[in-house]
């Protein structure tokens, strides 16, 4: 979980709500450039600021803190190393049975990519 992840969530929620950066910045009481930095993940947001933002954007705090699911990602270049670390962490929590299912799925993806689908 990086500031960038939180920033992406803010941007998505803002767009969902139909607000421009200027409008949201005004509502939470910061400058547009500060909001832009939050969205770009160049600044850390603290609890009280994010609580305010969550209220305005009608999202629970949890939405901003949890790691992104793939359908929530706007078109950004994914950091592959970060993704590998996340995948390893998730795998670590699975049972042996789950892992063999994951392996099957990985093999299926490879097979599909090899053009045989």
């Amino acid at each position: 979980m990086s500031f960038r992840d939180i920033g992406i969530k803010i941007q998505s929620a803002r767009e969902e709500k139909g607000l421009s950066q200027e409008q949201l910045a005004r509502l939470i009481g910061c400058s547009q450039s500060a909001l832009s930095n939050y969205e770009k993940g160049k600044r850390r947001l603290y609890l009280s600021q994010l609580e305010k933002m969550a209220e305005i954007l009608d999202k629970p705090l949890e939405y901003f803190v949890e790691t992104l699911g793939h359908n929530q990602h706007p078109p950004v270049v994914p950091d592959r190393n970060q993704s590998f670390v996340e995948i390893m962490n998730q795998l670590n929590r699975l049972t042996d049975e789950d892992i063999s299912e994951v392996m099957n799925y990985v093999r299926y993806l490879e097979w599909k990519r090899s053009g045989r689908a």
Partner: protein
Amino acid sequence: MDLSLTREQQELIKSVQEMANRDIKPFALKGSSKYKEKMLLAMARMNLLCPTVPQEYGGLGLDLFSTALVVEELAAASPGMAAIVAATLHAAEPILLAGTEQQKSEFLPLLTGAHGGSAAFALTESAGGSDLNNIASYAEAVPDGYLLNGSKDYMINAGMARFISVVAAIDNRGKKSSLRIFLVPGSAAGIVTEEIYQTSGINLTSVGRVKFDDVHIMDQQVVKSREAGSGYLLLTQTFDVGRALVGALAVGIARAALEQALDFADNRLQSGTPIKKHQAVAFTLADMATDIEMARLMTWKACWLIDQGGDYSVASAMAKLASSSMAQRVTCSAADILGARGYLHGTLIEQLVRDARVLSTIEGTNHIQRLLISSQL
């Protein structure tokens, strides 16, 4: 930002210095628990164990800038005693930032006044130090609160804390949004101090591994219990505050080393002159003093930003990174100036070198600071 200290701040420094020179410094190297009790009492009498606690809860109500001045003075007298205070400040921070009125009035007065004690912040586990995704301590919801289980490692103030701010997950282990900060009285049933370590530095500080075995915690002892995601955000914020104070700790340690080196260089004669007159030594001393001033200013800036409610995440990570590295350089340079005496076990300078070593590890290692800074560039 005005860099001149107010009259109150100057008086605060003077009074802490007087107490530290009288009640702490002469005993700091002795390291026995008998002296430690006396030193703690002297600090408590001046209400210095957690200077940020507001006056309505019995504290001094200092801002972080003034608190950093106190921590520097304490660290210059005894880094171990200053570390006890820094850990207590860290433990109190989540309550100050987001605690309820009830949490403030129950826990903060435990740290204040002549009978006040210390507190501990428990995050690190044997498998999870730098990695917040790996917190295994788990608080299971029960009808009137939680049952906390887990083991926390390398906790400062182990076995002596009046309360422990424990980071644990309440569900979906591994999800950041499930982290919460639990305020656990030091006397709660089920807390077992499993080991107190012999550390290389910050002697007098009790660093240990603590087990939480079905510790029952009421709902009202959890900071922002109902708000998923709040614990993680609070955690990052308290670290940003804690890091600025590591800066002050580092400056105090380095200052003590410089003072020793200066005193020695003035009095040690080689080739017929005090070694301070040899340019190599004089320039080293100049570099040390410059390094310390740089770190102090970075620390002050971070604290000032925190007090202003500004954007302090990068400033405090930079202050921690620069100051801890500086303290390691300066203490080693001082040891070099003292020659063979700097290598003897039980001497002040040898102790300061070992004290400074810990600064690049606590409150997030310096690698983690670089990660934080670079991600915000």
